């Protein structure tokens, strides 16, 4: 990755779009310090990531990955309230928070709270994954192809709900995808990655009329 300069405004949804291996996920991991830049600085909330205590930084950022990574030995409720648990909230408060969040992502807490992840469908698991990322009310959410492994109908459903949820909560979102339709639907701005560089940065509208060959290649998919 070279020459990466990105400024993400509070409250915006920035979609990192690109082929596999173009550097989107690496960029995302630079933000929560799962990767460290070899040169340059990444600032979160005005403070370089290197100056944060890594686990404190990550607890203040919601993180969702495609494989979800729910803890298979924890109930749904404990999964959702994990960051509050790490932060030392008492059990009653965690419980209330888990119920709120499950309701927020459209799951019935009474029905699902006590289940283990293995007893959920893919779409339900991803809802739990999103609820878990929101648990400590982080201002920033990082999502790495969160809907990539879902069937098309469930994916469309979650995309719509996610969009309205983000708007309602006013979160800043960085969203990685290789699906240009998903990017067009969710993005305030799109950053198009090609071999480790950002080759386009702008609104979905501007993206459609971009001259860059990679942008045109992606835009062509939209017209199919």
């Amino acid at each position: 990755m070279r020459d990466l300069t990105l400024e993400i405004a509070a409250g915006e949804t920035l979609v990192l779009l690109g082929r596999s291996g173009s550097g989107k996920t690496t960029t995302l991991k630079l933000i929560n310090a799962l990767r460290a830049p070899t040169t340059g600085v990444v600032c979160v909330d005005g403070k370089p990531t290197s100056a944060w205590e890594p686990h404190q930084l990550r607890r203040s950022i919601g993180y969702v990955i495609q494989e979800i990574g729910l803890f298979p030995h924890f109930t749904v409720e404990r999964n959702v309230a994990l960051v509050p648990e790490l932060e030392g909230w008492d059990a009653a408060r965690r419980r209330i928070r888990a119920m709120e969040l499950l309701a927020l992502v459209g799951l019935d807490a009474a029905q699902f709270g006590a289940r283990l992840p293995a007893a959920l469908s893919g779409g339900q698991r991803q809802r739990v994954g999103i609820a878990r990322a929101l648990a400590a009310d982080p201002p920033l959410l990082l999502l790495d192809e969160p809907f990539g492994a879902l069937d098309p109908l469930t994916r469309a459903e979650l995309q719509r709900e996610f969009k309205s949820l983000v708007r309602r909560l006013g979160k800043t979102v960085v969203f990685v995808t290789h699906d240009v339709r998903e990017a067009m639907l969710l993005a305030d701005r799109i950053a198009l990655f090609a071999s480790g560089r950002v080759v386009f940065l702008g609104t979905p509208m501007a993206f459609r009329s971009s001259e860059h060959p990679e942008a045109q290649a992606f835009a062509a998919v939209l017209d199919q």
Partner: protein
Amino acid sequence: MSLLDFLSNNRGEVLRLTLQHLGLVALSTAIAVAIGIPAGILVTRRPRLETPILGAANILQTIPSLALFGFLIPLPFLGGIGARTAVVALVVYALLPVIRNTVTGIRAVDPAVREAALGMGMTDGELLRMVELPLARGVIMAGIRVAAVVGVGVATIAAAIGAGGLGVYIFRGVATVNDTLILAGAMPAALMAIAIDAGLAWIERRLAVGGWQRSADNT
């Protein structure tokens, strides 16, 4: 004299040797767990230590047990004649399965689960305590089970250096070409191995309840 006659005529001694045997196995397995699990965890944190630690445990494992007892006798502190030396030798044998299964169990944790844990802000200690060890429990327990069962067999040789246990009958039987005596040592040892295996297997199943290894996160 039949085996059953011998056992019932010598009830007291049989019981004493059996308990002594069980004691050797229990103590050495406990020590191996206390050393092996931390050593295994260390290997997962410092991959560079994998070759020296697992390599050493592997090599120790290949020393024939009678020879190992012999080597230990002249050593100060660890060696000598008696139970202490036997426990040291048994620990040496029990270490490999415990270390190896600890490493395997922790490494088998789904990488996505580990990434999510770190991405959500778990410290390394929290990752280990809340995620890796609970998920690796079944595999670690299986290693302890192997260690204990192997220990029952190896402990019969401890009688050769005066540590007692059921091997006393076996050695005496071999020396006097008396099958009944050999069986009087071997049968209770075999039963003990089976009982330990079954008991630990039961605990292992209890620990893995819910079947939450891996399978869970595939859509």
